[in-house]
């Protein structure tokens, strides 16, 4: 389907403005961090500014002495989407450009959770060259999040390494075939740049209440680490003293 270029230009300006609003809304509401890490939020700001600049060019030129004329050579003999004021352009590129808007509006903003773990994989270990057991041990045990504990386990893989240490962690409930009925994992996704690189990590929890917890619900678990097993392999397991249901944190991901 083809549209007269003048009409297409209005749609282009409209889509640019809507994309700017879309990004700005994500930035203001904080749901931007379901998609990209906080250290890249400046990207969204840059995006909004450029989108508004580009959109403004449509309106301004209409009043310019030069009208719609631009410096393109007018090679009309091929399919080309640059508008020339009088030609007709295809709606397909415009339609495709609305897909992020449509999906963003139809599908409620949601961070990755337990259901994404199965394809993305889950790890009870996490290391980066910057990690040393010393850097983790500077964080008081009560302050450590799931990622800190998983790092501590990677730094010292002995199943008894954490025996007796008390923990207080928040994460989503995850389980797969390896877990016993009285076990589950309190999991988090870690993310470096955007959700495309999100990796799930987690701490194995042992609790008699485990079976009543619904997968993907957010919980806060306090307890003490003891040597245990997951699917036969020995590893530190958190013996839960108390489990409470909590709201999903504002920052659902952890950032290494």
């Amino acid at each position: 389907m083809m549209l007269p270029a003048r009409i297409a230009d209005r749609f282009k300006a409209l889509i640019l403005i809507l994309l700017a609003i879309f990004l700005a809304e994500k930035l203001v509401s904080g749901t931007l961090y379901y998609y990209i890490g906080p250290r890249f939020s400046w990207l969204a700001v840059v995006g909004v500014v450029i989108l508004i600049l580009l959109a403004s060019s449509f309106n301004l030129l209409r009043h310019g002495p030069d009208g719609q004329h631009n410096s393109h050579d007018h090679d009309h003999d091929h399919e080309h989407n640059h508008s020339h004021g009088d030609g007709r352009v295809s709606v397909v590129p415009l339609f495709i450009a609305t897909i992020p808007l449509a999906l963003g509006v139809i599908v409620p903003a949601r961070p990755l959770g337990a259901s994404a773990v199965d394809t993305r994989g889950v790890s009870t270990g996490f290391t980066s060259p910057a990690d040393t057991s010393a850097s983790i041990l500077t964080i008081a045990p009560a302050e450590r999040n799931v990622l800190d504990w998983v790092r501590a386990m990677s730094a010292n893989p002995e199943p008894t390494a954490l025996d007796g240490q008390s923990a207080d962690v928040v994460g989503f409930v995850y389980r797969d075939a390896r877990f016993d009925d009285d076990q589950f994992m309190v999991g988090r996704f870690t993310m470096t740049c955007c959700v495309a690189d999100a990796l799930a990590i987690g701490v194995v929890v042992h609790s008699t209440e485990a079976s009543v917890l619904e997968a993907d619900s957010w919980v806060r678990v306090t307890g003490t680490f003891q040597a245990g097993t997951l699917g036969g392999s020995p590893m530190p397991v958190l013996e839960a003293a108390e489990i409470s249901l909590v709201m999903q944190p504002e920052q659902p991901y952890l950032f290494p």
Partner: protein
Amino acid sequence: MTLPFLAEQFANFTTVFLGIFIEAAPFLLMGTLASGLVEVFISRDQMLRVIPRRRIMATIAGGFLGLVFPVCECGVVPLTRRLFRKGLPVSSGVAFLLAAPIINPIVFASTFAAYGWGPIFVMRFVMGAGVALFTGLVFSANPDPSRMLLPQHLVPVSGGSGEAIDTAPVPPLGERLTRSLRIGADEFFDMVRYLIVGSMLAAALQTAVPQSALLALGSGPVTSVITLQVLAFILSVCSTVDAFLSLAFVNTFTPGSILAFLVFGPMLDIKSTLLFLSVFERRVVAYLLLIPLLATMLVALFINLNVNW
């Protein structure tokens, strides 16, 4: 709240798709902005004066143009397209296209932040420049480079593009800026569909194919290289940040494969391959994919088999 399986997968697909799109779109916007400015403020004559006449020198210059235009793999495509219209030779354009996402100050900084001064840092840029220049030179051997580009990017034989600016009286600055924005906007609509389709493909693959299965494949000197090249292609993460991501693989993968990830990934991934289709003939995109893939793979294998870190 638990949704049925398919709805869950669709929600996860949407999250990953929007993640890739939101991260990449600002870079594409920056690229289209730069492209609009180049169109209005740089004439073809100025361009031809800067580019060395000898093809080999022109290719090498293209490989290091990223130092002047710090763009990643999304932003580089609109800019290269525009430079082709201004008369940039195909071989230097190819070298620029492949090298700029690596040989650029932002990537220096992020790679340094992730790896510090060391063999990975140095080799990433040596290998990146080498593979890009090699590919550019292969393309420069073609006697009729104009046939590689889609027709609308050919330099017009008479009239049109650059000349119009040179002969007409120069309009006021404000008007030229507005016009460059307008050109950038058109360009954005021309290219964003490739980014969107590419991000959707990448998100669909990530939602459907278990990554753990892929990662389990690779610890050998050969399989690790192939695995991380495939992963880099599917993940489609921006080259300015992929160094941080690769840290996750450092302990389980060979040094050669990490380098392959850091060199091949920025040059080509699902979204940039689709963006290339807006510049080149399909057959040329296939070569653009295969030559860097194989060249990076060979160097990475050589490192794995011969260098002991």
